[in-house]
């Protein structure tokens, strides 16, 4: 008898070794792990609670206030216009942030949310004190630049632990503030329109588009 010199073909239980890619199940678990890390970081980071659309509304409020303020006859009415705008903006900021936090199921009062407010508050308080002092000294022309500078500083510090876009917005506000301080006295409202109005709309849109709302 003549035997063919071939051995029985071995059928491996496992995939052939040239197929080095991991099985699909492992791939799905890896995806799941990455999504978990991303979700956790988003919830733990201070950034996501900030509502982009809220920022846009604040920007529109700022632009509107700049227009209204520039039409006021007296310095006191001018200041009152901006004070109302500040209160409205703060209200819009708090409400829209709370709405976004609820939508993504994130506690707003603990951890990052609290840190955000605690970092933002001191520059704003300093701004309020300086507003009273400078206005009393008849230096209201310096106010818009000072507001933009201090508000920007607050956004930079509050956004330290955050995605880069937040401190970048803060630095931009500070830059506009410096420009306002160097510019002729009558340009204050225009700088507020550009800084408090324009920058909020631009960065708010960016935040809303990229970070869900």
């Amino acid at each position: 008898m003549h035997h063919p010199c071939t051995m029985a073909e071995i059928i491996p239980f496992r995939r052939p070794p040239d197929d080095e890619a991991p099985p699909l199940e492992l791939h799905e678990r890896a995806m799941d792990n990455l999504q978990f890390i991303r979700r956790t970081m988003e919830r733990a980071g201070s950034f996501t609670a900030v509502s982009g659309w809220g920022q846009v509304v604040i920007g529109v409020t700022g632009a509107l206030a700049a227009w209204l303020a520039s039409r006021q006859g007296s310095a006191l009415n001018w200041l009152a216009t901006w004070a109302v705008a500040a209160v409205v903006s703060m209200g819009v900021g708090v409400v829209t942030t709370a709405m976004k936090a609820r939508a993504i199921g994130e506690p707003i009062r603990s951890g990052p949310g609290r840190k955000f407010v605690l970092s933002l508050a001191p520059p704003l308080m300093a701004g309020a004190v300086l507003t009273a002092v400078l206005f009393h000294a008849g230096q209201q022309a310096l106010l818009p630049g000072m507001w933009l500078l201090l508000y920007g500083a607050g956004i930079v510090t509050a956004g330290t632990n955050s995605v880069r876009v937040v401190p970048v917005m803060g630095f931009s506000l500070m830059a506009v503030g410096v420009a306002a301080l160097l510019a002729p006295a009558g340009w204050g409202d225009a700088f507020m329109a550009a800084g408090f109005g324009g920058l909020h709309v631009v960065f708010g849109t960016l935040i809303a588009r990229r970070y869900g709302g």
Partner: protein
Amino acid sequence: MAEARRAERADGGLRPLPGGAETGAPELDRLIHERVRLGIVSALAVNASLTFNELKDMLSLTDGNLSVHARKLEDGGYLQCSKTFEGRVPRTEFRLTDAGRRALEAYLNHMEAIIQAVRDR
């Protein structure tokens, strides 16, 4: 795998971590792979420090669960834990060490390499 690792990272919205290791981990890092511990490290990666209670709320954990896993990470050198008193109330604060940050970066690279390998198939 090496090719996959060299391939461009699918960013997926995650911000890059400062001081991250360039090399992916060839072996799965078991210390960080466990879900609770992965949550702790991820949360600390985006906060300079977090207190025990903040971490507990954030990750919806029990006291016991958090302390067991935080201890393991601390033993592994990924976590730094400092205990202070606020009046009479003890306050435990956690922060990520450089080793912990590198470990998370390596883990992310590892996961991305796995996904990339399947995509290239």
